[in-house]
Each structure stands twice: as C-alpha cells, then as structure tokens.
C-alpha cells in the first residue's frame, strides 16, 4: 500500500512533465494537422537553456535558489519560445500547402538538426546538476517503507497545475485563444473572416515551446541530469500521451500525460524498468488501433 502510494506520487510528477510537452503536440496537431516531431527536442533545448542560464546566474553571483529558479524559468521560456518560432518559420511555414508527408519529414530533419546542434554546442556528455530543491515531507511511515513527497515534486505538480489553468484560461477567454480555436476548426475559413492565421500558428508554436521549456526545467530539476538525446524518447512518450488523451484536445493532453506517467512508473515499479519504454510504445500502438480518437478526442471525419 505504501509502495503503491509512493509510486502514485512519482507517477503524477512524471506525468505532469509529459503533460506539459503533450500540450505542444496536441495544439499543433489540432491547428495544422502535423506531428511536430521536433517538439521533443525543443523540450531538450529548453532543459539545456535552463541549465546554462542557471550556471550563468551562479557565475554572476545570484545564489538564492528561489530567485535563480524564477529567473531561469523566465529566460528559458523566452529563449525556447524563440527556438519554437524559428523552427516553425524555417522548417514548417514554407511547407504549408505542400504534400501531406512533407512537414513530417521536415520535422524529422529538424529534430536531428537540433539534437546535433546541442551536441556540438555543449558536448555529448550527460550534464548533471546537484539537487537544487531539497527536502521532503514524510506522508506515511509504516516502519518498513516511508512514503515521501519531496519538495521538488511539489514544485513540479504546483507549477504544472498553475500553467495548465493559465493556459486553459487563455484558450477559452482571450482573443488569441479564440483565434486558435477558429484555426483549429477551419484554417481557410478563419483566414477568410479575418484571423491572421500565420500569426496564430506562430504563436501556437511559441506557446507550445514555452510550455515544453518549463517541462525541460522540471525534468532537469527532477532527474538532476540532461543530455542531448533525452528529447527523442520523451517526445515520443508525450506524443503517446497526446494521442491517448485524444489528439487536438487540451484536457485530453493533460489527462493523457498523467496516465502515461502513471503507467510508466507502475510498470517500472512492478514489472521491469528495462521494458518501460516498450510499455509506453505498446500503449501508443494499442490506443491507435482500438481507440484512434483517444479518450477525449472527437472522431475524425474523412472528407474527400
């Protein structure tokens, strides 16, 4: 029971990270119907930028951890958003109206490019950071097993919840959110009634990248290490989360992210940790076969 509870907490933390990345996939798919394969690598770039920014702040003498974390959050979100914007501008915008698979292939190229760019710029070794947020609360102690909720887990879950609420509010009640929903329903029609579709799509990428950057920071803090390759597997899992929740649906992405986090954690805890990626990938395949619209997705109508 205690073990289960502990795994539940770990799973929710991991799931929060996946959920933040999954939002980027689901938004882009919802609006322009492409799988932004490079999104996982944007997440990795966000983590790296946070790492560099943090070390830079330390070097110029900002040592108070809360202040440093806040500044790192801002810097990493802004710069990663810029990466998201640039990637869209260079690799996806010229391809609008090209054949169906072109953006996906371009995105794969972008993903390879970003991985190697970071590898060349910062080296291939795993970069590790000493734990910044320490301390834990003991929730339950049965003598044999102690259930802990660490402060970092609290930070991750709280930040994710706040961002999700903020983001849901943005989509439902701001001008930009309305534009985004309009584009999602019908890009051409939205353009006809005066929505600046190019700008909306750009902003979608910017917001998705900013959220991925937060996920990258959380990943860095939680695991204390990052390397240039983490984006690939994390990206596929976050995409799985988006598909599981129903691609195109925001609550779906959040739900899917949490579910994937939980499934992965429980699988590692009770079966085998070597095959945890297999578990996540198998879920992707099973969901797509038996429930292609996901849990909260709308069925897709095939048009001629």
């Amino acid at each position, binding site marked *: 029971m205690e073990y289960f509870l502990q795994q539940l907490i770990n799973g929710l933390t991991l799931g929060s990270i996946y959920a933040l990345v999954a939002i980027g996939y689901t938004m882009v798919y919802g609006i322009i119907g492409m799988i932004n394969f490079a999104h996982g690598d944007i997440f990795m770039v966000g983590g790296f930028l946070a790492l560099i920014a943090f070390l830079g702040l330390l070097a110029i003498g900002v040592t108070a951890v809360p202040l440093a974390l806040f500044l790192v959050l801002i810097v990493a979100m802004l710069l990663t958003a810029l990466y998201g914007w640039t990637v869209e501008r260079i690799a996806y915008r010229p391809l609008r109206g090209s054949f169906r698979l072109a953006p*996906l292939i*371009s995105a794969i190229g972008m993903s390879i490019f970003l991985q190697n760019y970071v590898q060349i710029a910062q080296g291939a070794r795993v970069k590790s950071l000493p734990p910044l947020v320490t301390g834990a609360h003991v929730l339950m102690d049965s003598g044999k097993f102690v259930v802990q909720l660490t402060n970092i887990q609290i930070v991750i879950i709280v930040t994710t919840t706040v961002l999700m609420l903020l983001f849901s509010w943005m989509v439902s009640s701001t001008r930009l959110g309305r534009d985004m929903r309009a584009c999602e329903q019908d890009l051409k029609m939205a353009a006809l009634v005066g929505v600046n579709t190019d700008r909306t799509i750009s902003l979608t990428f910017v917001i998705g990248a900013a959220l991925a950057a937060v996920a990258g920071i959380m990943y860095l803090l939680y695991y204390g290490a990052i390397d240039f390759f983490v984006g690939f597997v994390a990206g596929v899992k976050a995409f799985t989360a988006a598909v599981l929740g129903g691609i195109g649906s925001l609550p779906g992405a959040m739900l899917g992210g949490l579910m994937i986090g939980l499934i992965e954690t429980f699988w590692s805890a009770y079966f085998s940790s070597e095959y945890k990626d297999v578990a996540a*990938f198998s879920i992707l395949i099973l969901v797509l076969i038996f429930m292609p619209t996901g849990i909260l997705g709308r069925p897709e109508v095939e048009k001629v």
Partner: protein
Amino acid sequence: MSVLVPNDPKSAERVSRLDVGGAIKDAAVATVVAFGLFSLMLGLLTQPGPSGQLTISERPKLLIVSLIVVFVGRFLVAIFTRSLRVPLISRLISPKLSTSFRQLERFAAPALLGFALVVPVLFYSNRYLLDLAILVLTYTMLAWGLNIVVGLAGLLDLGYVAFYAVGAYSYALLAKNFGLSFWVCLPLAGILASFWGIMLGFPVLRLRGDYLAIVTLAFGEIIRIVITNWQDFTGGPNGISGIPRPSFFGIPFTSDPEGFAALFHLEFTPTHRVVFLYYLILALALITCAVTIRLRQLPIGRAWEALREDEIACRSLGVNTTNTKLTAFATGAMFAGFAGSFFATRQGFISPESFVFMESALVLAIVVLGGMGSQLGVAVAALVMLGGFELFRNFEQFRMLIFGAAMVGIMVWRPRGLVATRTPSVYLEKKKDIPAAIVEEARQ
C-alpha cells in the same frame, strides 16, 4: 491554401530596385533572433570542472562569428531574392534539371549499371573504395525496398530498420545455432522479416499517414529495446559476434587448400571475399529493383500507386486497401530482411546499435531525396548521400547536423526530390511523363 498568401507582406510587394536598406533591415532582424538563439547555447559552454561540478566558460568569439555569418547570409539572401529578383535556386534548377534528368535517365541507368558492374575491376586494389561501394549498394537496396512502401504505396514507414534488424538477427541466429548456410538463411530471413511486416501491418494499416508513421517508429523502437534487453537470445547490447562469413556457393574464402583461391589456382587475398560480397549485394539490389519495376506493371503495383494518390477513390473503385497495403508492407520488409542478412554476413558482428532510428531516417531521406518512386533517383540519392557522408568523415560531428539541415532543405526547396516527374506504368497510345507541377498538385 492560396487564401493565406496575402498575409505574407513579402510576397505581396516585390521591390524591383536594389533595396539595400530593406535587406539590411532583414539581416538585422535575423541577427537579433540569432543572438537570442545562440547567446546561451553557443556563447557559453558548460563543462565539468576539476571537482566534477559543472562550470561555465564564455565563448564570445564563436558567438560573434556565428552572428556575423547569420547577418551576411540573411543579407545576401534578401538582396538576391528581393531586389535583384534572382529566382531561388530551386526555381532556377527545378524544371530544367527535372527534364534533363528524365532525358538522361534513358542513358544514365544503363551507364550507372555498367559502371557498377566494373567497379571491382577498376578499384580492385582500393579496399576502402570497395567497402564504400558495398555500403552504398546496401543502402540503395534498403532505399529501393522502402521505396515500395513510401514511394509507391505512399505509407510513411519510420520503423523500416526494424525489418533490417529482423533480417540480420535471423541470419546470425540461424547460422550460429543451426549451422545453416547463407543461401538457406537468406530466403528465411526475408520470409521472417516479411512475416513481421504483416504482423505489424495487420492491425495498424487502418491508420492515416502521420499516425502510421509514429506507430511504425514505435514498433522500430520496441524491436530495438527487446533486442537490447533479451540477453540470452540475442546477446543484448554486446551483440552477436563470429557470424559465419559467406562462402562461394560452399567454397570458403580461406587460404586452405580447400579454399576459393586454391581451387581456382589464384593467389590468396582477402579481396576475393570483398569482391564476392560486392557482387552479391549488387545482385540483391538489382533483384529488388527488377521486382519493383515488374510489380509496378502488375495490378498490385497499380493498386499501390492508386492508393498513394487517393485512398478514398481506391476504396470506392473496389480496391481492397488492407490487402494492398499489407502486400506493400510485406514486400518492403522482405527486401529489408535480405539486406539485413547481407549486413550480418558482411560485418560478422551485429549489435542493437546498428539498428537505431537514425538508420530509418537515413534510408527515408534517401528515398525522399530520390523523388519517392523513381528507381534511378533513389540510386543516385544513395550515392550522393553516402558520398556526402564520406566527404564529411573528418568532420564527424557536423555530419548529422548537415544531414538534418539537408532533410529540411530538401523539403523546403525540392519536396519532390531529384526526380519530380512521374512515368505512368499504364498509358493509352504514347508514354508521357507527368510534369512535377501536376504531381505536386495531386498529393495535397
């Protein structure tokens, strides 16, 4: 999508005179963006310090140089495309290159084939070139196999390397555990790989393009993870070594009196085996090519191409889409299986590291660059791509960077690849090429 164009101010107003000011403005904006992108990533370097903790150091020179490169590059692009109205490279070369490529094809294909046949004679003493040629042919074969799935049937398969792995491991395990010869294992490996293709294909082929791509990617990863972790069966991350080398129809390439050299009264050299391997993979690749060309003229091949163009129309006309997709998948997988067992016998050692996603991406890039559907285009693309890789051998690090950028570049400038035109396999009176513009229109 033409509705969206007026939103882009740059395409609306085209300045005819030399607009240096505008170009400088563009370049300045690009430089500011680049500063944002590069300031942390290139300007600072994180390195483990003496105590093992990460330390940070500045790299102002690298940052400034990269910013200057961006500024000058963007300035030149702006000047050339906006002011001087020099058409983009793509527009300059695409129609001409395409038609001349078509005209060349009649001569180029036999010429290339003839050259391929005499490569071992010309470069007999150059072991390095022979090895490279074998590598190019292996990838050509893989790309021709994937071309059936992606180019003809229009199914994006990102896990193609899984079938390559199945072929390689089938040969390695069958040959090591049961002592079967290469010629027995080759068809078995192909059958096993296509069996896996059908197993994967059966449930997932109802999916649409992008979903299919991700599922095949996941499948490829699953196969690799299972191979890595199933230690007793596959040797895990250490791989399998000591895989039997191929023999000349039973005669081994050794220096024994029973060996190839002694029997044919030649002086023993290891090159015999390399040359044999070269002709082996050439033959396998040519079989792949010939089968594809023949299949395109059979009903199944036509069904593949029809499926690529319009799935709904296909279904309305009574084409069994599931079977059509399955055969494409299984055929493609079978050739990957052949190539895999060739790979295993050539290397003598295989490990999961040879079957990562990057291999799938590389083969896919070759198919895409070749023009998705053109046999000659794919062969030339394999030559260009692997040749390019070899040129950058000394810049190991930058190889994949350029590869990724090239993939984006191809999509942006020449999404139809080198050979953008299509030759229909069925025609009324005269064989007529379908120009690139129409091909492009058809696939939106």
